[in-house]
């Protein structure tokens, strides 16, 4: 079920009313309702893959219980590896099997020996990369003693399948989300209104910005050989806004929806396009995934400690894995590699933690220096997005070659004025709200209610009038 669909518009109020009016007093029943609603939500897309979520839930629940009983370090490690192998194994089969088979077949053919690889005719279960990482975080944290394993299977199933963030994150840590299923939730007016506000802004990002950008980004990328360099540049910029609007919009809707049910999820995007360098960008982009990699891979590898070559290795490992996590295609790996290249100088010069505050913290506008840094960061990020969006690495390089020629200085053939105005409005609101968890969190709160309602009403109508046609969220495929 898509957040931007009629189905979800009917599903959400039904679950909300049942949750607060019929099962409010019983925590267990509330959790059961969450599990049922989450399975309906997921099964709406394809019920056959519900078994995978259930399997993953049972495996990690059981391993969590066994870890609690087990004191032998060797056996505990064995249990941890069992969880990792099962979860990553599922991911490997469904997401990466065909990629590896195709690449091995090609590699052997290149070396002169013809082999026949049997690929699987399977589709990628939506959200598998997200819930797999979420359940893994539970087992790892239990193993590390950061969290006690739970005996409450329903609460654990609700944690794994929690529908607002099941298919595209944010990837919640068990230490943060799981305890919330054990606490009595009470309806809170301010939180609920805040949740609705965040849903509204998320829908604006997704339906107005991302879906409209998608229309033109797709047009340009799919026919890139027909367009001038300036149009290709515009196509890359549209894609940069598409992916940001799409993914951060989804996160906003997920966080807002969770808040309606009394849950707090962590911020997943913190205005990444206002970053002054790539290190800041990665602290602000897909925070739940970046911190997951940081805590469970980068730091155990040694992080930024140790010899220089180890630091370099760790940076490449983390960015290449991040790229590969996004999809079984070399384009994502090149994208990860590019970001590692961008990041490396900052790490080696120990300048990767220079910009930890909000840009132009005490003024309305950025300084010229800040603006230039922001522009450079946005430019190199957008350049990397070309590889992320392209179908193949060859196509990406061809796109780049065609972009950098004299026609870069001509007028673009595609000039959707309405979209450029919408993007300008969007950037302005995001800039004004950059100190907050999401752009409109407190932006208009000091205005009288009538004016606030007018603004929200205007946003709803813009979503309705200018909304692109219903498109799947990009991150569903990851």
């Amino acid at each position, binding site marked *: 079920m898509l957040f931007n669909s*009629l189905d979800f518009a009917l599903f959400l109020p039904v679950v909300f009313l049942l949750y*607060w009016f019929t099962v409010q007093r019983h925590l267990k029943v509330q959790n059961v309702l969450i599990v049922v609603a989450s399975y309906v939500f997921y099964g709406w897309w394809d019920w056959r893959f519900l078994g995978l979520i259930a399997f993953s839930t049972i495996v990690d629940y059981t391993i969590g219980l066994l870890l609690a009983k087990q004191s032998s370090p060797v056996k505990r490690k064995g249990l941890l590896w069992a969880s990792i192998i099962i979860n990553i194994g599922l991911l490997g089969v469904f997401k990466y099997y065909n990629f590896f088979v195709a690449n091995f077949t090609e590699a052997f053919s290149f070396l002169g020996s013809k082999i026949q690889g049997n690929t699987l005719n399977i589709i990628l279960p939506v959200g598998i990369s997200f819930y797999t990482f979420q359940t893994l975080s539970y087992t790892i944290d239990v193993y590390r003693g950061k969290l006690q394993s739970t005996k409450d299977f329903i609460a654990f199933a609700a944690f794994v399948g929690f529908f607002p963030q099941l298919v595209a994150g944010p990837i919640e840590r068990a230490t943060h989300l799981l305890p919330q299923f054990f606490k009595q939730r009470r*309806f809170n*007016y301010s939180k*609920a*209104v805040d949740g*609705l506000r965040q849903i509204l802004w998320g829908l604006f990002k997704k339906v107005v910005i991302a879906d409209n950008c998608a229309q033109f980004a797709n047009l340009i990328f799919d026919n890139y050989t027909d367009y001038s360099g300036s149009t290709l540049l515009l196509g890359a910029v549209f894609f940069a806004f598409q992916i940001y609007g799409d993914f951060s919009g989804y996160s906003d809707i997920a966080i807002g929806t969770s808040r309606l049910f009394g849950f707090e999820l962590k911020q997943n995007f913190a205005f990444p396009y206002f970053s002054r360098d790539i290190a800041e960008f990665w602290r602000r982009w897909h925070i739940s995934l970046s911190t997951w990699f940081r805590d469970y891979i980068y730091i155990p590898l040694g992080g930024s400690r140790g010899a220089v070559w180890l630091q370099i290795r760790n940076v490449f490992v983390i960015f290449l894995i991040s790229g590969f996590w996004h999809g079984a295609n070399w384009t994502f790996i090149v994208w990860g590699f590019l970001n590692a290249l961008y990041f490396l100088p900052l790490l080696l010069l120990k300048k990767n933690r220079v910009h930890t505050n909000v840009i132009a913290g005490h003024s309305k506008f950025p300084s010229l220096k800040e603006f230039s840094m922001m522009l450079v960061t946005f430019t190199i990020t957008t350049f990397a997005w070309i590889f992320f969006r392209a179908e193949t690495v060859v196509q990406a390089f061809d796109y780049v070659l065609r972009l950098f020629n004299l026609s870069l200085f001509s007028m673009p053939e595609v000039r959707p004025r309405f979209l450029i105005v919408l993007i300008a409005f969007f950037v302005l609101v995001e800039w004004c709200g950059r100190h907050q968890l999401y752009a409109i969190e407190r932006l208009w709160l000091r205005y009288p209610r009538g004016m606030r*309602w007018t603004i*929200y*009403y205007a946003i*709803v*109508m813009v979503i*309705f*009038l*200018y*909304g*692109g*046609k219903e498109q799947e969220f990009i991150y569903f495929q990851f």
Partner: protein
Amino acid sequence: MRVFLIRLILFLLLVAGSVFFLFSQADGYSDPYYLKFTSPKQRSLILGSSRAAQGIRPEIINNIVKDLSLYNYSFTILSSPFGKVYYESILKKLDTLRNGGVFVIEVNPWSISSHVQHLDTMHGVREESLHLGTTQYVNDCPNVLYLLKSYKSRYVNIIQNKFRKGEVMDMFLHDDGWLEVDIAMDSVSVNRRTLSKLDIYRGYLQDYRFSDWRYIWLQSTVSLLKKYGTVYLIRLPVHEEMLRTEAQLIPDFNSKMESLSLAAGVYYVDYNDLQESFSFTDGNHLSKTSASNLSKMIGELILSNRNIYNANGEIRIR
């Protein structure tokens, strides 16, 4: 919670009211299909592809045959080839409480052909996901479900197109279902469009074949309509090159239609004999002027055949 719900409901009512107002503004400029799903059930229908949608004007026929009220319920070759989807939609549009209607069914080789992958099956055919397949209610005004589920443009176009008429707008759907297309008719533009259209259709020859399945659905459609009135199978004129392309797709198309008309006891007329008297916008669709001329001819045919039918009850097949 009560305050929250009351305020939320008030806000949503405000939004719903605005949306409903916006939807009530949808008209023939909104898209080429919407009005067809807002008219009431009809006693007499024009059916077929975009050739009929643009090429047959109910108003002209209705003026000739005085007691007739034909409604053009034709769409496009992609959304309304003969099949289960179109049949069920026709059934919803048809006023089954009254008899004595007239049904003009435009037929052409493409409307009884399918992609080779779906020759004998409903499953996976394209029309399932297009307007007719996704529009469950076809007689509601305003048709909220159509606008929510099947309307393909941004909603702002409902308003914008009203102000753009005469500027960039080149299509207008009349209340009687006729799709008026205003397009440059100078020879250079017409030739360019014709060549492009021919290229597309010649490309279709690779993957499209005559479909028994669609032919059976055409038979079922004819049988259904025959219960409620007189049925005319009409083949509209097209550019000679297009006609040649169609002959490659189904060489015995006319004899197939003649057998069908004989078996079902309905009329079949192929206007391609008079092809030179018509002009086309792109080799596939009649120009506005030719649409008027052809509609006049169909009107006269209905009128004369009505007389013949009334006089001796026989069916004349041309």
